[in-house]
């Protein structure tokens, strides 16, 4: 039983450290579960606290949760989430802000990864980020009226404000730098996202990212229209490839908030399906990587090997994707004996096929040469951006939520966390290559030890106004969900931070000074999932100039 009193894993150590470095800055502390701490600090101390957390406690930035809590304690909340990997703890730092004109000092100069999170709360909650280096919007479109912040509680989810004819974005124009549009619709990007590559000759010298074209307002939907057990079905539609992670992550966050004890068997089934999802996702990515390199034979074979995994998922859950498996408190479908046998056999076949695929792939020198040494992301940058998943592990950062913050059944299995230190596209590929083997082994172990018992907690009740959160190691890295439960079986606040959200900003580093031909591959090397993220990077290009043009002018056929 997880309770408020029991401190787990690194908690005591963390509290000791907090005592030592931050005793005079902390105004409140709460333990919401094993390895889950929330501290309250005064807004004017935030920068100091973040400095200590990153320097002394080894905190890596995860995300920012903004919350309009005016109806609860008459303030806005900003919660800065850090992962203390080595202490196996999530540390949440909460500041309470003025209800009338909320403002807080930016921390982007300390952790680069906070850039997006800060701009997001500014867009969606109207919180003023003092000294933030980038005044532009992140999520709201250019024509969105000033002063309307969709995550404020007074804003109804069904409202569609009239967009005005404000100035809208135009590509950079300069004499010696060419702005090359990559997206928003591009054969190699399977979702609408816009990268503007600034090139000098053949070399990329800068990149500008514009995303959130497909922002669907899922958090708002969850907070206003859906009940606890309806959210999982929307959560898994956040991502078309690894939707199950969002589904589990949300349920775990609610279970953490409501202290619901999930049956062991449900934990195991969740882990099995999570690993099946990783298998198909990594194989999908390997195929796409081959395709981008012009090696379509590899693409075809990767996807051929992947197909039986999709069929397996279909047999186990009732669908190839959108498994619809989770409810708060457990899962809806059991895995029977026949299925276990089928899984074991299939894993053997796949291992064999995959071995052959990988050794053939590494024999193709053109592929390897393109991957080696391109798209470098040095370790210190990886830490500052708070990158996650294979991108982090490809930059020698040994971080994996399954190990750092164990959930579901991962505490019961043993597996390796592959890391590579070359920090290039090849490293990121190799991490995924190795992880497929680890996933196969994890599923085998889980099937072997699958405990009996029920699969859904009985009469799971969710109390009002409790906080909980959860991290999950998705195929693309750490997924993070935060919930604050509300009244009438609804979440008051549901925050989703998908892995790609932390990885895209680091592309600024990876794409610096690379040949143009390596750009698509490097962008693909983070295995971006834009739909998840939607939920700008600037380079000082010498003599760069920007123009603006009105929406009206554009609509009536403006030409450069």
């Amino acid at each position, binding site marked *: 039983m997880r309770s408020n009193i029991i401190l787990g894993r690194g908690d005591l150590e963390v509290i000791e450290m907090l005592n030592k470095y931050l005793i005079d800055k902390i105004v409140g502390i709460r333990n919401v579960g094993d390895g889950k701490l929330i501290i309250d600090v005064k807004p004017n101390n935030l920068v100091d606290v973040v400095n200590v957390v990153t320097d002394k406690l080894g905190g890596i930035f995860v995300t920012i949760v903004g919350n309009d809590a005016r109806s609860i304690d008459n303030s806005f909340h900003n919660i800065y989430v850090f992962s203390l990997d080595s202490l196996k703890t999530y540390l949440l730092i909460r500041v309470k802000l003025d209800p009338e004109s909320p403002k807080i000092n930016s921390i982007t100069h300390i952790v680069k990864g906070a850039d997006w999170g800060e701009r997001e709360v500014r867009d969606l909650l109207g919180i003023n980020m003092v000294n933030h280096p980038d005044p532009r919007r992140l999520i709201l479109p250019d024509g969105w009226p000033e002063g309307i912040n969709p995550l404020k509680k007074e804003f109804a989810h069904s409202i569609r404000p009239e967009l005005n004819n404000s100035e809208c974005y135009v590509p950079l124009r300069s004499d010696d730098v060419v702005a090359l549009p990559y997206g928003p619709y591009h054969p190699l990007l399977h979702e609408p996202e816009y990268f503007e590559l600034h090139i000098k000759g053949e070399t990329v010298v800068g990149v500008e990212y514009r995303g959130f074209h497909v922002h669907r307002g899922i958090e708002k939907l969850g907070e206003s229209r859906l009940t606890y057990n309806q959210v999982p079905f929307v959560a898994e539609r956040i991502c078309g490839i690894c939707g199950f992670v969002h589904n589990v992550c949300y349920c775990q966050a609610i279970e953490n908030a409501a202290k619901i004890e999930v049956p062991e068997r449900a934990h195991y089934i969740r882990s099995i399906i999570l690993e099946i999802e990783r298998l198909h996702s990594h194989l999908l990515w390997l195929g796409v990587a081959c395709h981008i390199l012009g090696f379509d034979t590899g693409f075809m074979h990767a996807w051929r090997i992947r*197909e039986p995994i999709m069929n397996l998922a279909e047999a186990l859950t009732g669908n190839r994707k959108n498994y619809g498996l989770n409810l708060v408190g457990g899962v809806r479908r059991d895995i029977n004996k026949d299925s276990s046998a089928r899984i074991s056999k299939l894993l053997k076949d796949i291992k064999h096929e995959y071995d052959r695929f990988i050794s053939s792939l590494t024999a193709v020198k053109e592929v390897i040469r393109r991957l080696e040494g391109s798209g470098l992301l040095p370790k210190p940058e990886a830490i500052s951006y708070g990158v996650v998943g294979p991108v982090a592990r490809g930059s020698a950062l040994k971080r994996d939520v399954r190990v750092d913050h164990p959930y579901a059944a991962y505490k019961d299995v043993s597996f390796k966390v592959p890391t590579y230190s070359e920090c290039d596209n090849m490293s990121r590929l190799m991490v995924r290559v190795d992880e497929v083997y680890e996933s196969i082994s994890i599923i085998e172990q889980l099937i072997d030890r699958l405990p009996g018992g029920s699969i859904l907690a009985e009469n799971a009740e969710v109390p009002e106004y409790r906080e909980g959160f959860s991290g999950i190691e998705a195929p693309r890295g750490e997924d993070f969900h935060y919930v604050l439960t509300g009244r009438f079986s609804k979440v008051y606040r549901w925050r989703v931070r998908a892995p790609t959200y932390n990885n895209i900003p680091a592309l600024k580093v990876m794409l610096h000074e690379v040949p143009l031909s390596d750009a698509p591959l490097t962008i693909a090397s983070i295995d971006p999932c834009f739909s998840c993220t939607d939920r700008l990077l600037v380079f000082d290009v010498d003599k760069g100039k920007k123009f603006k043009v009105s929406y009206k002018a554009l609509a009536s056929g403006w030409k450069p």
Partner: protein
Amino acid sequence: MSRLSWIKTALEVGVVTKKYPFERVEVPDGFRGLPIFDSGKCIGCTACANVCTPDAIKVVNDFTNGFRRIEYRLGKCIFCGRCADVCPVSAITITKEFELAYTGDVINAIEIKFIKCVQCGQYYTVSRHLKHVSSKLNDEALEGVDICPDCRRRSNINSLIHASGVFR
């Protein structure tokens, strides 16, 4: 391993692409496809509509003409099968049907008659649901199920007042 291994693999594996739709694709048992509603079984309890995430199931209460309509909209359905999970009389079956692309909107509706309160004569609930609930109650609890909540409240208050003896 030489790159010739790709050719070897290709020859060994052969053609894996199926000629769908000319060749049928079988889906496994337990596949979550089109839900089918049995209008003969449905008691109009609205449980399915309450759990349906995308509002594919809608409840329309027509008090003038005396019926409740349970509408299912195919175009909104995400095939989660939650409705079948919660239906107390197993009126919903999740089928293996998946070739459902259609340009219009398909609405299937079940209409269930309302029943009138024996005291005031207003429609107040659907007859089948009442029957279903009644079959699970003992005689004592059954007393007053044929009158509407409003009338029941009134008669409860009346009997309370009576029992208290204020207006003897």
